[in-house]
């Protein structure tokens, strides 16, 4: 039996191990805390800050868009949304919550389930963040909610921003619309964005809103709030210790920059009214031939862009999508058409410049023109008789151009077409512009692996065949004829303006190409175009406005190939979708052109039908330009003088025939 002392001594021998263990454990803790607090302290501090500080986005209003006279086209209006803040809503007892929802659903005229679903969807976001139950409230709804607010815990009316297209339909395509950025397009958008977008941000989806997104988009402000683990905002009074709140200054939202357009709202309205009458479909583009400023640009039918920025109603969207006239499509740049006889402007210039014809060239134009085994028909049964280049234009004599076409190389003609802006994008600053098509030998070989038939040139001469052009190209083409050969890049933006009114970026005329046409060529062609309106037999004489010296050209383009059935059928009796497109290009005044305009009237049967729209725009423009010279009074006098003269000449004609 060992004594207690020896036993205790044997125990005591073990204590040094115990001290050892103690030192090891203390060292481990020391190193661990050193690692967490000293080495990784900054990182963890950041994580703690991220925990407690929640960013609230202060939405920046987008820049405004003005017309050339500084009338507001795109504006931001305050809108009222009803929101529920879960933090306060959830704090209320169950009965109060149920009462709140049913009361709110009665006011908003929805059912409780929809509201609850909205709340459920937002359950993952911090509870201080209000959930919008309904946007864009009516004033009635606002006042009802304000009245009942005290009995509805967590419910509030909040203000938001709504993009407003001041004049509704007249600029929808041009101005475009904004909508919330799609979740699945976010990565693609953010790859090129100057400032990243996040879910819920608005982004320009079409037109100028899309093209000038970086200018119009403001810089969202940010406000920090301190939240607890349950996402509840900490109120100042909940916290009597002021040193606790670690203030981070909030950054106010910076509105986007404003854009002043070259477009004149009055011309938009004028054109829109003209299209709206008789429910017409088509587009109008007006350009200042001296610098390429776009004065007007309208596609019809239109849509209401405001619908998009607040979330489009499904039934409205369905209606837009199912409409055969494609109201969502900007026909000025996204659609191309056979230019029809408007192309004779180019054919005549090519003929004159190449020396194939001159002032004295006269063709005896019958109804038909035989080329090889194929017989081409003139639009006029019986033909036009002796025709020079001027008459070929104002009477739109097909046979004259068939004949000229037999001497014309397609590649030469194509060169003139390109020099006048066809076949390539005009470079207008709008998204999605298409280039149209100018066919030539290489094109045919490339696309169809076939040789060009000389007969095809004849079709192209009168603006048919594979040839297509967009309305904006046609407007640029006629503007080039008006200014004598300079193609400008069409511009929509006059200048960009900072919020303080300073001009940040002024756009200057941009010459794309200058074609040298001889004075004779220009004189002859312009004369022919002037007579289209002024000559008694001009194809658009019916829409001649005495007192306005304008030049123009009609064009008619087949939508479908004529069959034996349709050839002789009166256009107006055909099904609408088979009717020809009517085109009209014009400029005015003839001696000092200030406006060039192109109108395409889909299924308008004849170019003549497009003329009144173009002339209405021209008239409106000139009246603004020189209110005295083109006043209604002066024009009335000119009209009376014209009819007097016309009557006299008819009488003289009759007496001479007798």
């Amino acid at each position: 039996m060992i004594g207690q002392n020896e036993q205790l001594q044997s125990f005591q021998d073990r204590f040094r191990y115990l001290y050892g263990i103690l030192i090891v454990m203390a060292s481990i803790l020391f190193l661990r805390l050193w690692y967490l607090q000293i080495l990784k302290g900054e990182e963890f501090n950041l994580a703690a800050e991220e925990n407690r500080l929640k960013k609230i986005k202060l939405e920046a209003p987008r820049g405004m868009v003005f017309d050339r006279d500084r009338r507001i086209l795109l504006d931001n209006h305050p809108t009222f949304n009803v929101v529920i803040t879960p933090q306060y809503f959830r704090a209320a007892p169950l009965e109060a919550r149920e009462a709140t929802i049913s009361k709110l659903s009665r006011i908003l005229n929805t059912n409780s389930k929809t509201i609850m679903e909205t709340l459920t969807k937002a359950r993952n976001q911090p509870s201080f963040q209000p959930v919008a139950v309904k946007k864009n409230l009516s004033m009635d709804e606002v006042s009802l909610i304000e009245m009942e607010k005290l009995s509805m815990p967590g419910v509030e009316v909040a203000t938001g921003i709504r993009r407003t297209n001041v004049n509704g339909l007249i600029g929808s395509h041009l101005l475009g619309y904004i909508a919330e950025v799609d979740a699945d397009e976010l990565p693609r958008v953010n790859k090129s964005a100057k400032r990243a977008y996040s879910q819920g941000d608005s982004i320009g989806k079409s037109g100028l809103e899309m093209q000038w997104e970086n200018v119009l988009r403001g810089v969202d402000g940010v406000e920090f709030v301190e939240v607890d683990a349950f996402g509840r905002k900490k109120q100042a009074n909940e916290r009597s210790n002021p040193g606790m709140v670690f203030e981070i200054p909030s950054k106010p939202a910076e509105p986007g920059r404003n854009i002043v357009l070259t477009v004149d709202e009055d011309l938009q309205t004028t054109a829109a009214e003209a299209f709206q009458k008789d429910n017409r479909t088509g587009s109008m583009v007006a350009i200042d031939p001296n610098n390429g400023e776009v004065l007007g640009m309208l596609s019809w039918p239109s849509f209401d862009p405001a619908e998009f920025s607040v979330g489009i109603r499904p039934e409205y969207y369905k209606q837009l999508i199912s409409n055969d006239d494609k109201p969502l499509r900007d026909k000025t740049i996204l659609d191309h058409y056979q230019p029809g006889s408007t192309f004779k402007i180019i054919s005549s210039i090519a003929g004159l410049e190449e020396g194939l014809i001159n002032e004295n060239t006269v063709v005896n134009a019958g109804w038909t023109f035989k080329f090889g085994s194929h017989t081409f028909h003139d639009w006029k049964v019986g033909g036009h008789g002796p025709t020079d280049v001027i008459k070929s234009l104002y009477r739109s004599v097909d046979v004259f151009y068939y004949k000229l076409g037999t001497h014309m190389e397609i590649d030469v003609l194509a060169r003139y077409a390109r020099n006048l802006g066809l076949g390539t994008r005009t470079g207008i600053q709008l998204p999605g512009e298409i280039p149209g098509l100018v066919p030539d030998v290489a094109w045919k070989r490339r696309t169809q692996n076939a040789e060009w038939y000389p007969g095809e040139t004849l079709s192209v001469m009168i603006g048919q065949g594979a040839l297509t052009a967009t309305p904006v190209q046609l407007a640029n083409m006629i503007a080039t004829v008006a200014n004598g050969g300079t193609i400008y890049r069409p511009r929509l933006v006059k200048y960009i303006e900072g919020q303080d009114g300073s001009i940040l970026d002024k756009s200057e005329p941009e010459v794309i190409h200058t074609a040298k046409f001889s004075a004779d060529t220009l004189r002859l062609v312009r004369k022919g175009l002037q007579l289209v309106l002024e000559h008694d037999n001009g194809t658009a004489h019916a829409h001649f406005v005495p007192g306005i010296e304008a030049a123009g050209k009609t064009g008619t383009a087949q939508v479908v190939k004529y069959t034996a059935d349709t050839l002789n059928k009166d256009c107006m009796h055909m099904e609408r979708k088979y009717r020809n497109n009517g085109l009209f290009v014009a400029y005015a005044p003839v001696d000092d052109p200030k406006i060039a305009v192109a109108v395409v009237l889909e299924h308008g049967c004849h170019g003549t039908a497009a003329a009144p729209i173009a002339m209405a725009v021209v008239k409106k423009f000139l009246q603004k330009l020189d209110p005295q010279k083109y006043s209604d009074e002066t024009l009335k006098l000119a009209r009376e003088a014209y009819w007097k003269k016309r009557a006299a000449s008819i009488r003289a004609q009759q007496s001479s025939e007798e």
Partner: protein
Amino acid sequence: MATLGSEEVGSSKYDLNAVWVMLCLIAIGIVNLYSATYLSQGAEAQFWKQQAVWFGIGSIFCGAAYFVHYRVLERFAYFAYAANIFLLIMVLLIGKSVMGAKRWIGFGAFSIQPSEFMKITIAWTLAKFFHDDQYREYYDLKSLMIPILLVLIPVLLVMAQPDLGTAMIIMAVSVSVILFVKVSPRLLITIGLCLAVVLPVAYKFVLKDYQRQRIITFINPQSDPRGKGYNSIQSMIAVGSGQFLGKGYKKGTQSQLNFLPEHHTDFIFSVFSEEHGFLGFLVLLVLYLILLTNSLKIAYGSNDKFGMLFAFGMCSLFFWHVFVNMGMTTGIMPIVGVPLPFMSYGGSFMLACMMAVSILTNIANKKSMF
């Protein structure tokens, strides 16, 4: 060694180091608790006061106990054990259920947690057992049958509550004491092998789902950062964000804004480290090290086997609490409910820790019967 208890036996110099350290820790603890529950509403906001009340109660009890020689305690060891076991059974029968666990028995306005006292009682009982037992070079399985039984009964009762953290501490203290009296190497190897077989089986069939989850999230807290790993991650963020000097008293955002769970009990250390930084941690670590080395010294200098083993038991009690708690709040140990002595809120635990100090001081200063 003739110098047993040599530090001036019979001199008037009492070893009161453990008491001073305890008082420092309790003071820090209550001040810290005030901060931890500063923004809390309802009862929680009063915890620091309750803790102070428990300190008062503890002072009276332990002050009185100090005047009883620890040798007297030796005689009552099995009685205390039986009483504590009785209370543990009562907990299961009539205990208060809080969040799915039955841990408390109410006594009027107070409720106590008998399992906390079991941490002391088990050391007390084992000290008594080994004191009475004959000297052995090594303990083998046969000679350890009774101690193992003594330990398993309370451990199983506590696990039934369920309270894994407390059960583990009871085990840890017991194993510490048993290892201290030496176990035969053969038995150790056998146990090691058995554990290697039993643990995976236990993991699969014995542990509850939430307990398994804790182990998984300990190994990889990021596996479920918003769910089970959340506590561990938030605690590490709290501690780490304290950096060198801390965020300042009552300015710990992790705890004040409730990102830190259980910030008045198991995660009180995170609160402290967040607000007082590495410097604060060093102060705490030094205090605990003084307490631990002092209790080792007391055990070392004890006059008899009972005193030495009991003192050592108390030492290991503090050791396991401090290192497991700090380890789990800093992410180097799985999250188990182990509080930090004198810092965590909890009346029974406070009382138990104060008793432990009282016992240590008693053993230190009453080397002979008088």
